[in-house]
């Protein structure tokens, strides 16, 4: 069988209704692709694997088979192919992570190395775990999840991830509380119309890049994240958020107030840190 034509043949044989609505080829097609490859470990097999157009999901399938069969050389070879094909994407991700950090001179390369090594180890463990079936259905999405875990673990280990929790006993300005009862609008790029006495809080969303703010919101307690995201990124009203999360309007306001204070305090801490040099 012409190796080069295997992928095209299998895709072409799929009727349009066999693709799910997101246009993702179902797992059965990857199984079919995997079974259409030449015999394992033959020259033709390796030519096909190295060709570059075999889906990563199929490579994971064969990696797991090689590992199960105790073929260390074959396993290592497929591991290298997978990592080469995802190398550029992983490097972009690592650069995105470090972009948001202030690093002492000379530490950047060390951070990149540690971050990449953490990611590679996490991914490789996942690839070798046959119970993690979704890697053979949607490799890229599993990679996103793995990166999320690695990002969090890495930042915690480096002491750069402080969970944002309300400290007990801290007074919240009455004006801030009162202002949150007013209608708000955001998430479509328009100016946040929040009338608060504390201008620093009001300017918070404008002084920070959206992706950096999202990284801050990521550190909020779970219960607060959804409220912040739905109101400020999706532009939902408090009533709508209350309905979506099955909580009361008042609970939405309370959570928003707490989130606001935490984010504000964290931004202030960041600015003080920078001015201290």
């Amino acid at each position, binding site marked *: 069988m012409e190796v080069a034509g295997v992928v095209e043949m299998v895709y072409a044989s799929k009727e349009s209704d066999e693709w799910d609505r997101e246009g993702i080829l179902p797992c059965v097609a990857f199984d079919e692709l995997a079974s259409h490859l030449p015999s394992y470990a033959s020259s033709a097999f390796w030519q096909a694997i190295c060709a570059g157009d075999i889906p990563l999901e199929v490579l994971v399938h064969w990696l797991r088979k090689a590992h199960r069969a105790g073929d260390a050389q074959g396993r290592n070879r497929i591991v290298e192919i997978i990592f*080469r094909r995802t*190398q550029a994407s992983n490097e972009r991700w690592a*650069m995105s992570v470090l972009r948001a950090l202030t690093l002492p001179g000379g530490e950047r390369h060390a951070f990149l190395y540690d971050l990449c090594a953490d990611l*590679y*180890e996490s991914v490789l463990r996942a690839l070798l775990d046959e119970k993690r079936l979704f890697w053979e259905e*949607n490799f890229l999405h599993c990679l*996103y999840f793995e*990166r999320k875990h690695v990002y969090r673990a890495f930042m915690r280990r480096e002491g750069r991830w402080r969970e944002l929790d309300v400290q007990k006993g801290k007074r919240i300005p009455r004006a801030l509380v009162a202002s949150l009862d007013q209608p708000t609008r955001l998430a479509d790029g328009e100016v946040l119309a929040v009338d608060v006495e504390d201008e620093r809080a009001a300017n918070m969303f404008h002084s920070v890049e959206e992706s950096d703010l999202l990284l801050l919101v*990521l550190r909020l307690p779970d219960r607060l994240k959804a409220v912040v*995201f739905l109101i400020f990124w999706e532009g939902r009203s408090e009533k709508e958020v209350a309905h979506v999360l099955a909580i009361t309007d008042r609970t939405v306001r309370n959570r928003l107030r707490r989130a606001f204070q935490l984010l504000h305090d964290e931004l202030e801490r960041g600015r003080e840190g920078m001015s201290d040099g």
Partner: protein
Amino acid sequence: MDREHDEAVLRITASYVAEVQAGRQPRVSDYLLRYPQYANAIVDFVIYFHALEGYELEEGALEGFPPEIADMALARVKLRLFPLEPVRLKPLTTLLVESDGLPLTLSQLAAALEVSEDISLLLERRSIRSATLPEELLRRVSRRLRQPLNAVSTYFAALEYGGDEPGKPVSRIAENRARYPSEVERQPQRCSFREAVEASPQLSHEQKARWDAILKREGLE
């Protein structure tokens, strides 16, 4: 979190991402209404995705990313996960066979190294002085043949007996004079890598310019 929960969250968020990447603007609230039991996990992933995966780096942001980091990271991970596997060191005798015995054509080698076939042939014949070869080229050979870097360096340096003059022996104490293969005695004068690049009729101007930049960067004038 149990495996069933994790799998469910993976599938649900995969659906969300597919919609985003298809240019539709899915609403997280719709997903939360449909799957309230996974609300926290869904929101957590969506925020991460838009912060770090949906973020576009500006052009040139990857410049300065040390190319050896990926290799080093992978080597470290393999050592951690497969520590008992012996490292097989096979001496390199040709550039036209990979480490597991698969043959390579000159054209495939040239493509992997981003050089022309005539230069690949010079490299295979070791007709280029090893001291003039850029590290970048050696790394590409190492990567393509899946051979350690020192094996590649040793391959190119193998004909260098006492400097750049092929055929001139270096005898150690109490060592008999070495015998040379007849090809070595007949080998033409070797050139530098820069000379090979400049003289190649098969390399494009762009390729020559790229190699020129690499040679300058590595201080190989």
